[in-house]
């Protein structure tokens, strides 16, 4: 297998852009990534496009903005894990030798309001099954079991919103306190508004290539996509939303494939769709011991200045969550941090190993982990 270089990255602002169709957002991200890589659009032989909400052939719609070159466009949908899925498909294309250069895009325009992505099962029609209901119940159960306090969950929102203030591309710039989180609008107690990420619009793109091609455009050392893993769920009783196994299994496979261990990692962008998810994923990814997610946030270990910074970009909570764009944008953030280009949110000790993780469809249906190495 060949090494895979991340030659260029690009990302639009995340937010609400009612006057800009998604394909223009996608083209903006691609043009920035091409400019960053020094590569021309006509030199791109294939596009892997992640998108959830925008209908047929979204990648081809973006491609039309840039000029028809007749290249294959592969559209990918895996709910919130779509971005990682596209990254891993693109990684395989380069690593296997199928292509020498690949463009990965994540692009999304979303309706306002709570996300209801799954087909209408009887439980969903009744309203017994919804994201907000599930996460409210996850929180209720976690408090009952003594795993986390509501304050610890709120601290995730405070931290990620604070980080987003330092990210010019983020949807929100909110200076919040733990009390602000608790006092925000009740969605389904104990879930309040600021425990939830927003639905958003935006796009992100990467130019990936072989090391040989990379040398034509730039000089080493290169930032590389070291690999990763994509998994669906194994059997758990009840609902996929309650599973921890999928993320643990995906991380384990990603660590084994890349030879990276959790202790090596200096930056993590993960799936903080709701505050409790960040605490759980920190444990599942092995950033701390089992049951230590609450302690990790209490100690400030996941702050930009902490031992293992998590969601420096502002995360889904603060930066925004245009579903399929998120995974690709996480890779952009890790690359900027590794290049020392993260401005006010720059981690002092430039990170050398990063991890990007998103979970799609209920946390437990799809899970992608991508490892990035300097």
């Amino acid at each position: 297998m060949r090494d895979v270089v991340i030659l260029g990255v690009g990302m639009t602002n995340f937010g609400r852009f009612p006057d800009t169709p998604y394909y223009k957002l996608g083209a903006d991200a691609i043009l920035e990534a091409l400019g960053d890589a020094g590569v021309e659009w006509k030199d791109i032989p294939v596009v892997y496009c992640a998108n959830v909400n925008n209908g047929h052939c979204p990648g081809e719609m973006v491609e039309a903005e840039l000029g028809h070159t007749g290249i294959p466009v592969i559209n990918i949908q895996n709910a919130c894990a779509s971005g990682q899925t596209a990254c891993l498909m693109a990684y395989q294309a380069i690593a296997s030798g199928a292509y020498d250069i690949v463009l990965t895009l994540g692009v999304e325009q979303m309706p306002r309001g709570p996300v209801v992505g799954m087909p209408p099962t009887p439980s969903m029609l009744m309203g017994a099954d919804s994201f907000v209901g599930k996460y409210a119940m996850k929180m209720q159960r976690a408090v009952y079991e003594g795993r986390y306090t509501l304050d610890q969950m709120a601290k995730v929102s405070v931290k990620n919103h604070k980080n987003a203030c330092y990210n010019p591309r983020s949807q929100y710039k909110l200076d919040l306190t733990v009390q602000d989180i608790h006092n925000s609008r009740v969605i389904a107690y104990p879930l309040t508004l600021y425990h939830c990420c927003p639905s958003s619009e935006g796009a992100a793109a990467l130019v990936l290539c072989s090391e040989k091609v990379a040398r034509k455009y730039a000089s080493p050392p290169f930032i590389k996509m070291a690999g990763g893993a994509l998994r669906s769920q194994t059997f758990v009783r009840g609902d996929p939303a309650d599973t921890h196994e999928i993320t643990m299994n995906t991380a384990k496979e990603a660590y084994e494939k890349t030879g990276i261990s959790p202790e090596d990692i200096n930056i993590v962008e993960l799936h903080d769709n709701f505050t409790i998810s960040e605490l759980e994923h920190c444990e599942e990814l092995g950033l701390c011991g089992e049951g230590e997610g609450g302690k990790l946030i209490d100690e400030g270990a996941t702050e930009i200045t902490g031992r293992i910074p998590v969601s420096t970009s502002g995360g889904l909570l603060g930066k925004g969550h245009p579903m399929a764009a998120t995974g690709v944008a996480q890779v952009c953030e890790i690359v900027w941090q590794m290049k020392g280009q993260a401005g006010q949110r720059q981690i002092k000790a430039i990170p050398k190993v990063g991890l990007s993780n998103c979970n799609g469809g209920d946390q437990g249906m799809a899970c992608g982990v991508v490892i990035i190495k300097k």
Partner: protein
Amino acid sequence: MSGEAAKKEHIPIGEGLFVIPPSPSEKPYLVGSKCRSCGEVIFPPRRRCRRCSSKDLENVALSRRAKLHSFTTVQVKLPGAKLEPPYFVGVVELPEGERIRTILTEDPSSLKTGDEMEVVIDVVYKDESGKEVLGWKFKPVKRGK
């Protein structure tokens, strides 16, 4: 209400999910699949076992009683959901091990985790033509009854 519900030609929210016995003295129950290979009981019924993929499944009547695992009150209108907020939802755990997402008949602020619950089949919403749609709900089992 189960016997009357059948008479009024209410429509079930899904086929094969529950049974309302014709005799009013018998109580309705949910239907699951039991795997003859690994013993797992799943709801709703499926063709293959979710745990071991075996096709050797049988339909079984699920326990009518379950323990309240978690709960909340949904305060927002969800796209596609037929219920108007606020409404009460929960997860109950059956003695068979399976957990079921459900509407709760009562405000869960008066309930606690682990409370004994009992399944009821009841109207959950009206469809576009005004027909009443039946689904499952769980209600607390009052002590002393």
